[in-house]
């Protein structure tokens, strides 16, 4: 009997809970951080033969069906919600009267042990209440991406008028950023979101920085857990360096034209840092103002002015989605940046690991707090140090001298000095590269998630 009891106990604590993973888009349509994290979790759970389902939101690519808020165009365990056009982004309320019933029926049918939500946009925060109403035993886990619940400015806690960083929300400060609303609107917004957050059992913050901000905002500390998102999937063995490529480096780009052809960025010669070639510092991502692209380009100009030959800055990204005025500014800045900068243009996210392996260090010059940028996870996955702004989630993930270096946020000269220092002493970068610890593997990250799930499920 003892053996049986032990076996049952062991089986219970190792049994994998059934999980419904939710996110506000669908990886078949967009590849943002939240949907990538959700997809990775879903796939990892499936890899453990867990009973798991995915619920995403349709964008423009999927057709809706009259009278059917939920459809399954991508498979039996994959559901797609077709939202209406009236989502209230101020308070994340979903006015679609058909969704609560559809979601309620889904969770009542599936009876998942866990609903792990990676976003409440488009579903609405009321969906947590709907889930509890129709499946009271289901535990709800919410991964927090950005500061959406706190800040109406895309969840970034950056002032709308000055682009200065914001430390703390207040009704008056928020009304100042959004004059079309009154203070009482922000009071109501907070109350509304917090009302439905009461139904969430655990909030996952990928960084302590984020967790602290949400604690200040009013989330109960006992419900907040710091746990890194599932790492982005890396194809193949990511510890080995990429093979040597004999193709010469592409020329510096003028006037914003990408060096790469339509088939993608040209391969770049790779050798160890300090091996008699300029150090290559790579930027990966959206070339938006908040991502600090202007800081990066100005740093390159500064390097030119100082006639620094031991370093180049290589940009892998796209600015075509940015406002026209910003696009013009980027094009002009790139043209003036000189030989220290190489613009490769947009890239397919599936190529990110290959491209990163050809770079010596990844630069993350964001001028907003960031939470746990996917690009940092990707850099660490590929064993590349990160040079980042000294604020927010970036500063927490990157420890100077351990897995990267900091520079003063927003200051191009500070970034330039860090790069110059490494150009003069490339061995330092090599040292950091050598001692860097690899991030959690997917398996280890999944185990951490499962452990969390089990801790909130009834015995």
């Amino acid at each position, binding site marked *: 009997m003892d053996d049986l009891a032990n076996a049952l106990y062991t089986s219970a604590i190792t049994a994998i809970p059934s999980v419904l993973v939710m996110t506000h888009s669908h990886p078949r349509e967009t590849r943002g951080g939240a949907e990538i994290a959700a997809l990775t979790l879903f796939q990892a759970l499936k890899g453990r033969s867990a009973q798991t389902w995915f619920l995403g939101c349709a964008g423009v690519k999927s057709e809706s069906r009259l009278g059917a808020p939920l459809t399954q165009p991508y498979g039996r365990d994959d559901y797609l919600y077709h939202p209406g056009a009236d989502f209230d982004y101020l308070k994340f*309320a*979903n*006015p*679609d*009267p*058909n*969704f*609560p*019933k559809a979601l309620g029926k889904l969770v009542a049918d599936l009876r998942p042990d866990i609903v792990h939500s990676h976003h409440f946009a488009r579903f*609405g925060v*009321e969906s947590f*209440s*709907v889930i509890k*109403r129709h499946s009271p035993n289901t535990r709800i886990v919410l991964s927090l991406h950005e500061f959406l619940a706190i800040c109406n400015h895309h969840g970034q806690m950056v002032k709308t008028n000055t682009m200065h960083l914001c430390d703390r929300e207040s*009704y008056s400060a928020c009304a100042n950023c959004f004059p079309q609303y*009154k*203070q*009482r609107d922000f*009071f*109501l917004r907070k*109350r*509304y979101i917090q*009302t*439905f957050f*009461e139904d969430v059992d655990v909030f996952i913050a990928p960084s302590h920085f984020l967790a602290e901000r949400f604690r200040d905002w009013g989330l109960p500390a006992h419900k907040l857990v710091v746990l890194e998102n599932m790492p982005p999937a890396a194809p193949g063995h990511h510890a080995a360096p990429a093979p040597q490529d004999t193709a010469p480096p592409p020329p510096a780009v003028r006037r914003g034209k990408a060096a790469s052809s339509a088939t993608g960025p040209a391969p770049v010669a790779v050798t160890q840092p300090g091996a008699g070639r300029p150090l290559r510092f790579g930027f990966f991502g959206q070339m938006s103002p908040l991502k600090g692209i202007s800081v990066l380009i100005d740093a390159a100009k500064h390097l030119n002015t100082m006639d620094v030959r031991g370093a180049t800055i290589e940009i892998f990204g796209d600015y075509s989605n940015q406002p026209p005025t910003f696009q013009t500014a980027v094009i002009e800045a790139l043209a003036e940046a000189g030989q220290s900068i190489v613009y490769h243009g947009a890239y397919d996210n599936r190529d990110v690991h290959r491209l990163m392996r050809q770079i010596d260090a990844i630069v993350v010059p964001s001028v907003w707090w960031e939470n746990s940028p996917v690009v940092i996870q990707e850099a660490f996955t590929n064993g590349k140090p990160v040079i980042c702004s000294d604020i927010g989630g970036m500063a927490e993930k990157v420890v100077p001298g351990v897995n990267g270096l900091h520079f003063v946020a927003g200051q191009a000269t500070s970034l330039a000095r860090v790069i110059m220092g490494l150009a003069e002493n490339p061995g330092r970068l090599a040292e950091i590269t050598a001692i860097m610890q690899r991030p959690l593997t997917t398996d280890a990250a999944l185990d951490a998630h499962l452990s969390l799930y089990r801790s909130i499920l009834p015995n």
Partner: protein
Amino acid sequence: MSFAGNIESLSFCSALGGWLVLGWIGFGWDDQQTRCEATLTFANGTIVAEPIACVFDRADVRKVGTGVVIFIPDQRDVRGMPQDLTLRCGDYTFYAALNSAQALEQRTQIAHARSLIAHAVRSEQWKTLVAMLQRPMFTGNDTLDDFERPVFLQLDDVFLCPPHGLWMFGWMLDPFSIVKSIVVRCGSRQALIGPSTSIPISRADVRDGFADRFGGLSAKCGFLAYLPDIYVPAETLYIEVETIDGEVGFKALTAISSAGVDTIKNILGRLDLGYDELIRGYDRVVGPSIQAINTFRLRNRPGYTVMRFGALSERPTASIIVPLYGRIDFMEYQLAFFSRTLSRDHELIYVLDDPGQLRQTERLAASCLARFQHPFVLVAMTENLGYAPANNVGLAVARGDFVCFLNSDVFPDEPNWLEYMLETARTDPTIGIVGALLVFEDETTQHDGCSYERLSEFGHWIFCRHPNKGFLLQDGRDVHPVDGVTGACLLMSAELARAVGGFDEGYVIGDFEDADLCEKVKALGRFCVVDRRARLYHLERQSQGNQQASWRFNLTLYNAWLFQKRWAADVLAPSRLISAPAIIQRPERSLQDTALHG
């Protein structure tokens, strides 16, 4: 003794205000030394008046009588043609059927009469009649420009205040001070624009426009006038100006706007009355005109439809009545919060007083039920009528033993707020109204009961104040008596609410209705209290900006004026303060924990 005679022509002369009758009459009637009396018989009644008459020689009846011109005053609006005329003077009686008399157009009749009385016997009545008949008549044209010395008169706005009132906003410049009277005429009615019917207002723009032509002009050349009983539809409306020189000029009034809430806002938007002007202005002009408009617009009981969302309680304990106007999204927030804090034993009634938003509200209501699953009633009024009518409609629909009037911008903080208020209301039968502690979003006090205060800058009228507004309240779990309670959150028994007639709809749009309700309840010997355990957020609208120039502020003054007329003598009476319930300390958690979701 009856006398012979015949009436050959008659007509109603609006310019004179009566009937002008021409004919002949037997000798002797004018020898009577008593007052005469003329009776005109109509199909629907008679009028009796003292006539003005004079006689003249007529060759064709010289053997039996004299020609006669008679004026009989008739101020009625609807007349018809008379059937017969009877004259009585002492023993003298003259009767004439009028079916064969010619009904002439008034100008023709007047011209004819003028020519006849030129030869009439001179008497006091002759003089009167000559003056009447020679007075210039309005022909439809403006004639003020014909005055020897200039007079300028302009009406910027004329509004109808049904049924017969006119509100006028205009100005008059009389550089040489020659104007003797300004009379508005319509049909047989007339009204003087004078100190009892108008107030002067500043029109520096007008003065400045004429300053280069005339010196010494006063900026107080504008006026607001209210003539309560002047207008008759389909009758010619005009102004008659008479000067000290005996000149008479006319100005047509053709553009009359109909009245409604927008009229009220328009009227109030033009006011900027200070200390000395406030009382006079509201007593003479503003108050009566707005009262007339408001009474007219509310003359019919409002129509409404009732929609039920979700499964409502069969016998609700309390009905919460929430008027909705403008911010219908407040309903969404309230329903979201109430779904967590309000027992389904109570009935939630939203009264949409904003017909233009009906469809959006219906959609939002369906969405809210799907999301929050809290049942409620939505009553849609067919017209926007304001706070009092909307709440009264809610009261008519309510089925609870208690009613709680609640603003749409009030949101619960303490989950058991309503249960506390009900407990207080039930515990002490002398309590008629229970209010709540309301706070702003920054936790400072918005309402902890109202007190009354006379404000010297506003005619020493009584206004409701919120003591400690803006301050952080010390934690005090008590029930305390107050002069009044805001309608933003006000609980009373439904029976009592109906007994006092609900909210008085004489107040316009919203203000002072709650104070009035409290006074009605207090007049029955009951008290008002605030239960501080019932704590809610009231996201009160912000201050009105340039308050004293806005229509909204002047509307508050109108409602204050109305409140004074009704309650000023009672409000601060010492007897009111006797026997009020003392501050009641309630232990925390005295309320039994009850499941809030049925």
